[in-house]
Every structure is written in C-alpha cells, then in structure tokens.
C-alpha cells in the first residue's frame, strides 16, 4: 500500500443512521419465521377444499361398501349357479347317448 492508498483508506465513512437500527429490529420482530414442514403444506393452497374432497371420497366409499353383498355370500351364490357351458355340455352328452341307444329325443 503506497502513501496515496493509505491516505484514501484513512478517510472515515459515515455511520448508518441511528434510527435505522431501531426500525430494523422493530420490523424484525414482526417477521414471521416459516414453521417447520407440516402436512398442511401438501394441501396448499386450499386445505379446506382438499379436506372436503377427502371426506366426500370416504362417504362414497362407505355407502358403496354397505350396499354391496358380502364377499362370502357372493362366492357361495356363484358356486350354486351352473355355468352356461356346463348346461350346454350336459345337453349334448344326453343327446349323443340317446342317439347311440336309439332312444327318441
């Protein structure tokens, strides 16, 4: 650093205005520090709307479940019903036997 640089560096700058500190920390107290992440963040921008939609889905699900037959009863009903192919096969088998034994159909 030469003499000229030293001369420049000795010049003292103004201080920040005193009221700036008070204003700054007055305002800083009103700064809202963002909270930690919450589930509500996922539902931005309308948590109520998303909540209502979720409640509707639950409602529809409940109604749909109560109207439908139980799984066990459905299975036993189905088991009792003859399959269409089985009926058709039985008819053809009987006709063939009748034909062989020469019974009238």
């Amino acid at each position: 650093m030469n003499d000229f640089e030293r001369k420049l560096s000795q010049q003292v700058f103004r201080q920040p205005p005193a009221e700036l500190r008070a204003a700054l920390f007055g305002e800083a107290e009103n700064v809202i520090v963002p909270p930690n992440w919450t589930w509500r963040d996922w539902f931005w921008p309308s948590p109520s709307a998303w909540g209502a939609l979720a409640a509707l889905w639950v409602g529809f699900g409940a109604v749909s479940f109560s109207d439908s037959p139980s799984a066990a009863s459905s299975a036993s009903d189905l088991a009792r019903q003859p399959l269409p192919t089985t009926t058709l096969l039985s008819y053809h088998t009987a006709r063939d036997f009748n034909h062989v034994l020469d019974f009238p159909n």
Partner: protein
Amino acid sequence: MPPDLRQLYDDHAPALFAFLLNFTRREADARDVLQEVFLKLTAQPGRLVGVLEMRAFLLRLAHRQAIDAHRRRRTHDAAIERAAAEPVILFAPGADPDEASFRAALTEALAELPAEQRAVVHLKLWEQMTFAEIAEALDIPANTAASRYRYGLDKLQALLRPLYEELR
C-alpha cells in the same frame, strides 16, 4: 447456534452501510438493502451457522442484494451509474477544512468509477481484503478483482493528484 442479530448489526452494519453507500451512491438504497439483509437473516438465521468470515459473508450478501434490488427495479448498472452522478455524503464530517475538501473531491472521484470497480476499490481500501477475498465476495476471478482495483486506483490518482500533492 446462529449469532445474536443485534450484536451482528452493531459489529458489521457500519461497514456494510459504507460499502452499500459507496456502491449504490444513494442513501435510500443503502438503507433499504441493509434492512433487507438483516430481515433476511432474521427470517433465515440458519444461514449464519458455520460462517467463519462473517464480515466477508455479509458483504457478499449485501452486494448480491444490492444487485438484485436494482434488477427488480429494472434499473440495473446503468441506474447505479446515473445515481453515481447524484450528490451523496459518503464520509463522516471532519473539522479540518483541508480534509473536508479532500473528502468532497474523493466522493466525486469515486462517482467517476464504474460500480464494480468502485466495489473492488472499496473492499480493498476500506475493508483491507485480499484480492482472493474480494473475488469470493463479488463472485469474480481474483485476476479481475486485481485489474479492476488497478484501473480504479489509477483513475482516482489521476483525478485527485493535484489536490493530494497540494495537501501533502
């Protein structure tokens, strides 16, 4: 654990304000940016955790914030240069009339420098930072910092030499 912001302000705000005043050449801008820097730190105190060179960190933040503020206002560097022509009081008042006239001349001479040269000159002369530190603070290569300083100082010397020689 982030440091106490009031203590941080007392320790560094004068240096930041001086830098911002010299860089932006407008007191209102210097105040606004200083305020923004500290409000940002209030909202995000975690940014200060682990910072080793606090002054350099804050100067870097202030420089970026000053540039962002001008970009937001679509004024950019041209406006900083225009503002440089406006009268501003950079230095503390002194009793010695010779010193006062030198400070007035220095204020005008600094206005003749481009903003980025002024930033480098300020950090070198008034913060005694090395070119490597200036480079990091301003996001420029160290060679660029050194050349900006050299050009800036040469210009200041050319503008102030008559008065400087007279006052010696």
